[in-house]
């Protein structure tokens, strides 16, 4: 079976700096793959390439058999890829529920004129969007419970904003979910909770997940496969234990002297 997401020899340069260098990568349907690597390794660039913010200079990115290169970001989202942001990008002055409802755009249809006169079809669709948003938020249980739905997003705590970003991404009904450092800024208890949550996103939500994460406990807890990047090159790939003990990975994180001392 062809992989859901596939990078073929993808290269991305910014001026003289090569951020992603001939990268091959694949994510199979139903898999949870983690991308690790030191700062500046090209992890977020990888996400920006998938979601269409950047266009690769060479190579091809394929999703479910079709090339994504040249598509606008919103077209890529409509094909079934949604992401969260490392630096949170919520619609801060909209309510929690509206944040999620807004993300239902690509699979809803009511046009402007139909919305002005509120046709029965439009009202039915609105109810469906609302139900979907409530379902996406309820996935987080107590944390994003009902009383918070009508609060503005800026009133949420940092960890809750991260949860809301995930809820918003799931409302686009994606097949592939890209999570950019979902545990950043969370305390140990919340991080532990998140590990379980990501697993549930696959089992209950049915999403395939590609995640960038620095917290090795999370990576260990969730990943089927780990990919390590350094300077835009894949330096290691395999199970968590394989990658974590790979000398090239240790070197990338800690420098040559660390491996020499071993």
């Amino acid at each position, binding site marked *: 079976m062809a992989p859901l997401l596939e990078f073929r020899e993808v290269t991305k340069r910014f001026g003289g700096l090569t951020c992603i260098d001939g990268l091959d990568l694949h994510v199979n349907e139903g898999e949870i793959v983690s991308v690790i690597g030191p700062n500046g390794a090209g992890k977020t660039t990888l996400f920006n390439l998938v979601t269409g913010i950047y266009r690769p200079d060479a190579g091809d990115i394929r999703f479910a058999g079709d090339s994504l290169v040249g598509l*606008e970001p919103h077209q890529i989202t409509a094909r079934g890829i*949604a992401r969260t942001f490392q630096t949170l990008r*919520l619609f801060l002055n909209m309510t929690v529920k509206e944040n999620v409802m807004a993300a239902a755009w690509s699979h809803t249809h009511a046009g*402007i004129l139909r*919305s*002005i*006169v509120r046709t029965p079809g*439009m009202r039915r669709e609105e109810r469906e969007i609302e139900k979907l948003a409530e379902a996406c938020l309820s996935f987080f249980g107590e944390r994003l419970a009902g009383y918070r739905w009508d*609060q503005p997003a*800026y009133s949420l705590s940092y960890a809750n904003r991260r949860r809301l970003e995930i809820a918003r991404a799931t409302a686009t009904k994606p097949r592939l979910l890209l999570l950019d450092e979902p545990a950043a800024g969370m305390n140990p208890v919340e991080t532990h909770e998140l590990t379980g949550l990501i697993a549930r996103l696959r089992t209950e939500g049915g999403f395939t997940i590609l995640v960038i994460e620095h917290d090795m406990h999370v990576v260990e807890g969730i990943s089927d496969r780990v990919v390590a990047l350094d300077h835009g090159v894949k330096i290691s790939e395999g199970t968590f234990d394989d990658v974590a003990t790979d000398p090239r990975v240790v070197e990338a994180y800690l420098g040559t002297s660390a491996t020499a001392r071993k």
Partner: protein
Amino acid sequence: MPNSTPDPGIGRDEWVAREATLRDEATSTVRFWQRLPLTARFGGAVALTALLPVVVSSDYIVRVGVNTLIYALLALGLNLVVGWAGLLDLGYVAFFGFGGYAYALLSSNQFHLHWPTVASVPLIVVASALLGILIGLPSRRLLGDYLAILTLFFAQAFVTLVANANRISPPGHEGAVNFTGGPNGIAGIDNVHLGRFAVHTVRGYFYLTLVVVVIVIAGLYSLNKSRTGRAWRSLREDPLAAQLMGMPVNWLKLMAFAFGAAIAGLTGTIFVALQVGVFPANFDISLLITIYAMVILGGAGSMTGVVLGAVTINVVLEILRTPDPARWVFYGLVIAALVTWLRPYLRLVLVLGGTVAFGLLAHFLATQFAPAATRGAPLGGGAIGRLTDHWVILLTHPTTVGNIAYGCLLLAVGFLTQIKGAWRSVLIVPTLYLAAFVWENRLVANPSVARLIIVGALLVALMNARPQGILGTSRIEIA
């Protein structure tokens, strides 16, 4: 809640607590109003507005009412573009002007066209929307300041175009054609006529405009609560995130331009039919600033807010035209500001009493030692005018001294904002007197200048007190 429980508990975080406090603090009238269903509130407001021409006999006041409704329509359209979609569109009045001129050309002797309104107005609304898309096309990749500058260019280009399109020589045509009448504009424009009904009184236009306002508000309300409304607000909050959540941001921007332009164009047709003429000067930058002031004062994003903003600014500007009502506004605003800001009440009483005493003393001294120079009479008279006659020094030749005093007043107000404590309470007394002196001697005689100064001061004060506008919700820009 008893004080012994410091733990707010589940569901009682800071935001919830603040909301609860606000609810508890609301007065019973406010709470009664908030408990009414939305349709009842809206219907009540419309019914009250509809009563205005019935209870008022003066056509002038009804005319002010129509103008206010026209401003409200413009503010609602601009609110869609600026308040919802977050596009800083400074070319907005050009669409208003386009609608106006298009109606004028289709309903006057300029080209001897007299189209029925049912045909011309829908055509103009659609054409305005298309023009909005056309102007949106080159600007759709721009945001913020860059978009503002580009659209400002379009607004200026429109005024220059209509002021000069009176001697255009189209190819294949002998001589110049007068399209827009140039600076003289077009006069003798038809009234709005629907079938056999023609609207030809100010009261008729009042009800026509009110109906249009109701339809526009209802449509916008539905639109705001639809996926498009949410997408526009997402675009305002974070265009990149909006696009990555599947929203086609360029298309959404074009639609915001188009619908804003359609409302402006529709308003233009009513405005021109009411004015029975159209001139380039109707669509200058000062109108743009006025509409922006209404939207910002009322609270960008809130429909009720921007309508209130339009009412406040237009009515205040109108009242300030004549000396006696203007006095009520001036002294009313000063006293309202003092009552709002001066605490405790003893301080308020001392300041007000001190100002009155200061004035009486100054007036007494002035009439004793310089009777020849202080023989002015209160302009326009009126109750307050007579009341202040023995309090404010009225100069025989007010111009020069009045101008100097105005400069001093600005310095004094600036100085007052910089000092604290008891000295402020002391110095506020002569400053208030100086303000009254400048007002009575200089500003009352020049309403065209005075009204702008007063509205400007009102805006400065209100925006400092409530940066989000009267009904706007406070926004977090970066958090």
